[in-house]
């Protein structure tokens, strides 16, 4: 386009206007939101990167002295030689997020199908039942598990009988409790998007697949899964990303026995007053999250090709 043509008046969505007038209006509309996110998230996140190279003073202040100590500590080179504690936490968080997402997906399918097959009038009742825990505050839902796993209630008593825990102990803090909390927290995040895909499912394709394949699994993979992929991938991302950085659930249900990276970061910005180290760990978490997201998208794309 030549310069003269660029600012011609033109018809845009039925409106007679110029490109520069449009741009002015566009910028006006976009700026508040854009600057808000820039100032309070994007720029500080970049500052996090800088902060991860700073030193922590003797009393918890930040000293802007360049150091790689935070990263070497993260890689395991601490006071007493090499020990991969933090790497273990990062790996553990990745694993927990992955397992949580998988189990939630597996449980979400039956539930989504069940609701989708209900008559239209009762469907929204079932959906409401899924939405209610979804909208209930996470703090409430999580500490409620402390109640359910306490020594006086059947579940913990059963575990004690089996000898898994000392008699009279609660079933938390423990890895099991953390998984319970995570799965129950994220289930609605997968069920709801998945349901919106399942609702729009073209059952004729599924019936055709039943005619073609004798193996139920193949029917699922070829006819059902590809159609539900959009909802499924939204649900998986909405679960995986928060699960990676989750802090409340390991705090309430894991205690110090099962620490995840969210707790580690919270500790550094809180009691340990080691912001530079917290920034370094945050960076590692961001990188891992992005890698995880990338893997999910790749797998999603591959499956669509099938």
């Amino acid at each position: 386009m030549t310069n003269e043509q660029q600012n011609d008046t033109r018809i845009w969505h039925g409106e007679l206007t110029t490109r520069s007038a449009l741009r002015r209006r566009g910028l006006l509309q976009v700026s508040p939101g854009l600057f808000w996110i820039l100032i309070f998230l994007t720029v500080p996140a970049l500052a996090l990167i800088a902060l991860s190279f700073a030193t922590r003073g003797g009393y918890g202040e930040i000293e802007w002295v360049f150091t790689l100590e935070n990263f070497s500590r993260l890689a395991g080179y601490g006071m007493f030689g090499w020990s991969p504690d933090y790497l273990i936490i990062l790996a553990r968080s990745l694993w927990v997020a992955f397992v949580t997402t998988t189990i939630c997906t597996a449980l979400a399918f039956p539930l989504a199908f069940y609701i989708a097959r209900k008559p239209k009038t009762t469907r929204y009742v079932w959906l409401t039942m899924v939405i209610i825990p979804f909208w209930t505050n996470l703090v409430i839902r999580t500490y409620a598990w402390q109640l359910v796993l306490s020594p006086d209630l059947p579940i913990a008593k059963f575990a004690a009988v089996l000898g898994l825990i000392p008699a009279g102990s609660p079933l938390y803090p423990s890895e099991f409790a953390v998984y319970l909390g995570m799965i129950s927290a994220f289930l609605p995040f997968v069920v709801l998007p998945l349901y919106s895909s399942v609702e729009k499912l073209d059952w004729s394709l599924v019936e055709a697949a039943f005619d073609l394949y004798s193996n139920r699994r193949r029917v699922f993979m070829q006819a059902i899964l590809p159609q539900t992929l959009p909802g499924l991938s939204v649900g998986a991302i909405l679960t995986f990303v928060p699960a990676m950085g989750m802090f409340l659930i390991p705090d309430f249900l894991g205690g110090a026995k099962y620490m995840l990276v969210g707790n580690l970061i919270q500790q550094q910005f809180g009691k340990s007053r080691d912001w530079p180290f917290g920034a370094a760990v945050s960076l590692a978490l961001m990188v891992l999250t992005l890698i995880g997201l990338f893997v999910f998208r790749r797998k999603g794309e591959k499956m669509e090709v099938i």
Partner: protein
Amino acid sequence: MRKLLLAIMMVLLMVPSAFAAKEMRLLIWSEYMPEDFLTDFQKDTGIKVRVEYYESMEEMVAKLQAGGKNQYDVVVPSDYIIPAMIKLNLLKELDHSKLPNLKNLEATFINPAWDDGNKYTIAYQWGTLGMMYRKDKLKDFDGSWSVMFDPAKRQGAFIFVDSIREMLGCAQCAMGMDVNTTQKTELKKLLDTMLEAKRSKYFAGFDVGTGGRSKVVAGTAVAAIVYNGDALRAVADNPDTCAFVNPKEGTIGWVDNMSIPIGAPNPDMAYTFINWVLEPKVGAKLSNWTQYATPNEAAYPYITPEDFKNPAIYPEKAYMSKIQFIQDLGKENKMYDQIWTMVKTR
């Protein structure tokens, strides 16, 4: 619909403004005052107090560093953290002319080691950390740390206190180590001991003092590390099941102090409060309720006589030498911070 929203907003806009009235802001340990302490203060001086709680020193300092130093009028830090707070410019220098009751303090607490000349702090209460336990569930309990730290002697679920120096210090007392050591070999032993305890199937988590106490009372744990006063109050409510002891190998002692953050919005109210707490009858009422030892000599005549004879509150002379006080270690503080992170993450 829009009008309704507007109306709701108007109503809710009034909510925060209702709290803009002048009041003194107190940041203090939870359960550190009798229930009507602040209403008494209001009756005597007319000043309303808004109180907020913390459960550990590190939490309190982190709060002040993140902007709290301009938001609170009185804060109650423990001895060992005060040099750090002074260096970090978090505290205001005290004007002694506004504190006539300062003379009521017992001699030990005037010019203490952590604050020469009481420039920034005035003693509030002092006490120890010890073990609260279920006497109906522990067999042959000898009042030793071993029920937590010795694999052979553990009998049931136990809880550690969630405070960096204090918890590590308890472990060090159990091992007969100097709680202020900076020797790497010693610290490695400390780390190993803590990790061994944490990995035991009897370990039931880190909790603030009052949290651990609640668990012992409820029976979900048989032993927990709790501040002596908190524990004694619970023992008084549950005399048949619970008991408290300062372990025989020695334990951590602490002195809590009142101080004024450097940017306090209402410093005059703060001085009034501190001076009021130093009144003899007020000091006695405080200690009689909290079950901690008072630093206020003028209050002695009003203290419950049994408390003076209770070694859990006022330890015997022979035991005093076994009580260790945590000190600020300057640059070496981060060694303990790092050990703590290692303990919590491994």
